[in-house]
């Protein structure tokens, strides 16, 4: 037979030439090569680059804010100490029947008209307006104004931190559940997927709300730190099913692949199959979903706060979503941004648009940049869309 084999060593021509990466150094480190490849496809996507740039800026801000002594901490301590919760008009200047009892950081504007505190946007002495950092005033039409500059700074690391924590935990649980149900199949799969269906059929926002609304009563969650924990718990409970479903779908595909069978044929156990073959080949879709959700969650936080729901211990909690929502806070009795709009529509008074606009813009920028990045990632990771 060997006579028939005209195996010239040379002409094992490298189709690998197709890949630019492989043609560089003689033995490129493949992992790096693959990262380079992904990065290379990411780089060709302008939107993704924009997203990355904005995100980097936000992260820098967050780092900067960490080392900035900003009075908001003081605020929240006082809020936490003063018993009233949820502070409808803020805990520092309790507003009752038209009169303001000044608190430490709180004073009456000369004429009491919000027009006096309309911002002259001037970042030179780090403020959005004539007020000193973190100071608070009340206006006759009774929304609580406060200097949002500090909050905007500080908000960056809260928004990022909370959402990353939530997504990370949720994805972990989802990965586990999905992998199990996909790999074992049978009744395990059935049961788990029914549960997932149940969780998914409750509208997410409502679900989060009812979970937190019930748990918030528990004494465990009273202290300040635990409130954020509660928030995270509430979201994770609602969030894991998405990841579980995605992972499971992917695992079902991967499980049928021949290389898994080959590993089985050479005696690989279940653990090895899952860890070495199935999970590595089915995580990528989650990455995309995760990056999307990191952008989505601050928005939902904002929505919760907007619905008048006390997620954070104080309505001055410097988180973009809640800041934006605060300014349109529409609880009962509380003066609302919307009311302000209604009353001010004939130009009799100034609508505190900056209170809403800047946090809103931050939120929007953050979310959209994350989405750009996620979209770019999807295209870079999915070879089908690439060509």
């Amino acid at each position, binding site marked *: 037979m060997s006579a028939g084999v005209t195996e010239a060593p040379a002409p094992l021509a490298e189709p690998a030439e197709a890949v630019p990466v492989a043609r560089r150094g003689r033995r490129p480190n493949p992992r790096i090569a693959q990262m380079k490849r992904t990065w290379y496809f990411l780089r060709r996507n302008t939107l993704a680059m924009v997203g990355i740039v904005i995100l980097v800026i936000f992260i820098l801000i967050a780092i900067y804010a960490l080392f900035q002594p900003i009075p908001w901490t003081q605020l929240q301590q006082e809020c936490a100490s003063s018993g009233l919760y949820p502070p409808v008009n803020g805990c520092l200047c309790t507003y009752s029947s038209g009169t303001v009892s000044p608190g430490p950081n709180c004073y009456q504007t000369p004429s009491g008209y919000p027009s006096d505190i309309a911002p002259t946007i001037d970042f030179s002495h780090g403020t959005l307006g004539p007020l000193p950092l973190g100071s608070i005033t009340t206006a006759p039409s009774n929304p609580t104004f406060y200097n949002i500059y500090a909050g905007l700074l500080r908000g960056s690391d809260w928004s990022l931190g909370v959402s990353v924590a939530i997504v990370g935990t949720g994805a972990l649980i989802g990965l586990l559940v999905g992998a199990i149900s996909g790999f074992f199949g049978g009744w395990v799969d059935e049961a788990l997927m029914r549960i997932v269906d149940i969780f998914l059929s409750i509208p997410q926002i409502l679900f989060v709300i*009812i979970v937190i609304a*019930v748990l918030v009563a528990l004494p465990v969650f009273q202290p300040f730190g635990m409130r954020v924990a509660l928030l995270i718990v509430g979201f994770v409970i609602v969030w894991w099913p998405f990841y579980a479903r995605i992972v499971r779908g992917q695992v079902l595909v991967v499980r049928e692949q021949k290389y898994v069978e080959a590993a089985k044929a050479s005696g690989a156990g279940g653990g090895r199959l899952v860890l070495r073959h199935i999970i590595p080949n089915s995580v990528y879709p989650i990455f995309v979903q995760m990056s999307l959700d990191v952008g989505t969650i601050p928005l939902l936080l904002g929505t919760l706060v907007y619905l008048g729901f006390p997620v954070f211990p104080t309505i001055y909690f410097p988180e973009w979503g809640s800041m934006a929502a605060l300014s349109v806070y529409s609880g009962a009795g509380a003066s609302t941004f919307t009311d302000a709009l209604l009353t001010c529509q004939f130009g009799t008074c100034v609508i505190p648009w900056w209170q809403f606009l800047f946090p809103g813009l931050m939120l929007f920028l953050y979310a959209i940049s994350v989405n750009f990045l996620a979209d770019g990632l999807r295209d870079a990771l999915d070879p089908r869309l690439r060509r």
Partner: protein
Amino acid sequence: MRMWIYIVRRLILVVPIIVGVMTITFALVSALPIQDRLISSFGPPPKNAPCGYSPVCPCSVFGLPQAGNCTNPLYQRDVNKLGLDSPVYVQWGIYIGNSLTFQWGYVDNHSGASSADSLIQGEPVATVLSWLLPYTLELAIFSLIIILIVSIPLGNLAAVYRNRPVDQASRVISFSGYALPGFLLGTFLLMAFVLGLGPTFNGEDPTCKAQSFFQVFYGSWPSQLCYPNGQWPSWLSKGVITTPTGFPTLDALIHGQGWLALDSIIRMVLPALVIAYGTIAGLLRFVRNSMLEVMNLDFVRTARSKGVPENVVISKHAGRNSLNVTITVLGLTFAFFIGGFPVVETIFDLNGVGRMFVYALLAPYDFGLIFGSTLLFTFLVVFANIIVDVLYAYLDPRVRLG
């Protein structure tokens, strides 16, 4: 024939899901303090009840001679009704039974935020929700229509004219839609109309003719003044709930108030847009991508090689196939879609179920309403999914016969 089997099976599959949802809510409810549970399931204690739902109170309150504390009979009775003194599975059974028979407790809303509070105070939750549901449904249908007529054609166009202005536009819409939650978009719109357009429309005379553009879009009904002799028509109780059907537009038509029907539709435009926007954003990408995939499939090539003109290829051969994907995705995103209602109804002050949910959230919470409306919304989602599946099976023979 097969179709019927499919539908029946689908309906059977719904039962465990609904029971499961109720179990989740049951788990949450049973985490509540007993007093709250009693209030939420039997409404506020009657005025003549001496000491509310407190388990024990001094016997003197009951006019009993002996001193010390006696157990509260009211408390006893209601605890028995809920089976709180019996094992968990009994409680679970009772809870499921009540939920399935729409006994969702009574409204105890002492926040006084709603103009309709005095109306709904102490009413059964299900009843109140049944008053409010029609408005929400009308809004939902309206925005669903918007979603479909925007996202499907736009998505297909974006796929056909890939990387060209249409596609870019769709991309912008979808990205911004991801990044704009309802309350941001809604408030932005309000700001736009007030700060931008409001002043240009302001006029002094108080009739609705002079109402500002903003006010026309805002709120569920025009002010009292806009009606013939300055007050609400009889069938419009406080401008909240209309009779007989509860669908504002429909009722207006029934009562022959054409302009009012038109008005109520106009007022639905902004809210519907805000609700639709997020869903459209989610849908567009899927429609586009699925259309792109379908256009590269073999059978499209076959159709072309048959000599079928391009527009027919796209609309008939490719479109029909990508429609399946679109419908599935719509079913998946329906929960998000429903979740937008509380926000929008709050922003635009519409008296729907979502608004009621938000009222219930004002401390002290009205758990009866909260859980009731959650269940209601969940039912909406579940049944929407059934409809979607059946539609899908109808459109795709492989599912129907498989």
